[in-house]
């Protein structure tokens, strides 16, 4: 699972990430009190990471723009493997082909985590949704992403949904139209 990919990226121990992330979330729960606010902030943090991770991804894979949403799903799947060392399945395509899910049976972020009962509404993995949204926005794809199923809440898998909204236009240089 954790063997290095063909893109030969440098690795760190996943527990360092698990615990660092867990400590951050715990601090936020303390600071913000309301779990919904924490979920929102986790999404934003993911977004900030996504807009940078995409550059790393593009530079390492030499990948071009996506041909279609299917292609996008495949590329994000590769990204999961590169960055989290896990391989989710792409499942549950909507009939219109504009929505799909990633199904994760393991996830380094939640490896040592148990949610206490009073934090059941916390979306611990929202950081992944934010990262997907941020990364895709940088390649002109506007999407929504949210957690559908969560292993921390007793679901058999963690399922992350992605919905295509629209294609963004290239920015024009100042003073031209």
């Amino acid at each position, binding site marked *: *699972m*954790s063997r*290095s990919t063909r893109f030969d*990226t*440098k*690795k*760190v*121990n*996943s*527990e*360092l*990430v698990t*615990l*660092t*992330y*867990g*400590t*951050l979330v*715990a*601090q*936020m729960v303390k*600071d913000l009190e309301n779990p919904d606010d924490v979920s929102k902030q986790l999404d934003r*943090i993911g977004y*900030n*990471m996504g807009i*940078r*991770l995409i550059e*790393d991804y593009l530079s390492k894979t030499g990948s071009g723009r996506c041909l279609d949403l299917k292609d996008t799903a495949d590329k994000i799947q590769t990204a999961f493997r*590169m*960055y*989290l*060392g896990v391989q989710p399945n792409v499942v549950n395509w909507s009939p219109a082909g504009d929505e799909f899910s990633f199904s994760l049976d393991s996830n*380094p972020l939640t*490896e*040592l*985590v*148990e949610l206490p*009962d009073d934090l059941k509404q916390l979306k611990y993995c929202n950081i992944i949704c934010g990262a997907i949204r941020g990364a895709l926005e940088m390649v002109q794809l506007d999407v929504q992403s949210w957690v559908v199923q969560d292993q921390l809440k*007793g679901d058999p898998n963690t399922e992350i949904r992605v919905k295509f909204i629209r294609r963004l236009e290239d920015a024009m240089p100042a003073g031209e139209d």
Partner: protein
Amino acid sequence: MSLGGRNRLSILDKPLSKGKGEVSLSCFALLFSEVVQYCQNKSTTLPDLQNRLHELGRRVGVKLIDLYFVRERNGKRETKLLNILLYVKSTFWKALFGKEADKLEHSNDDENTYYLMEKEPVVNRFISIPRDKSSLNCAVFIAGIIEAVLVGTGFPAKVTAHWHKGTTYMIKFEESVVGRDSQTDER
């Protein structure tokens, strides 16, 4: 704990993972950068920011003690000062960062003080080292981890991070620690 009839496997029912999982360095670097920014937004001064990072590091360290000592040593801990320092420098560092720390030195002036050096800590790899070297060293987070490990294993100390030969962690043990160590030596 009942969960509306769901049969949930508690984390305690699962075997402890071997801890061999790996995540890309880029991913950690960006996560850590968000941690720094989060702390920065909460802080008004540089020492404040440093304290927050140190504190977060300590909380990570506390959890690592149990994880590592249970997993690798059957819960057996070190009793000698030098052994715990060597453990931190080699085994612990290697498990966490994939390599040993570069150097361990005993201070010439103070027998309670040790220096652990690392040219390029993982948290600083992508950060410009400031010219004046007075500003924040994010490795204070790692200093927090070390401190928690030492304190938690019975060697109370203060650990700080400094810009010197890359990054140097200054480990200052409480007087009693060194005293105790020389007593056990005599036996």
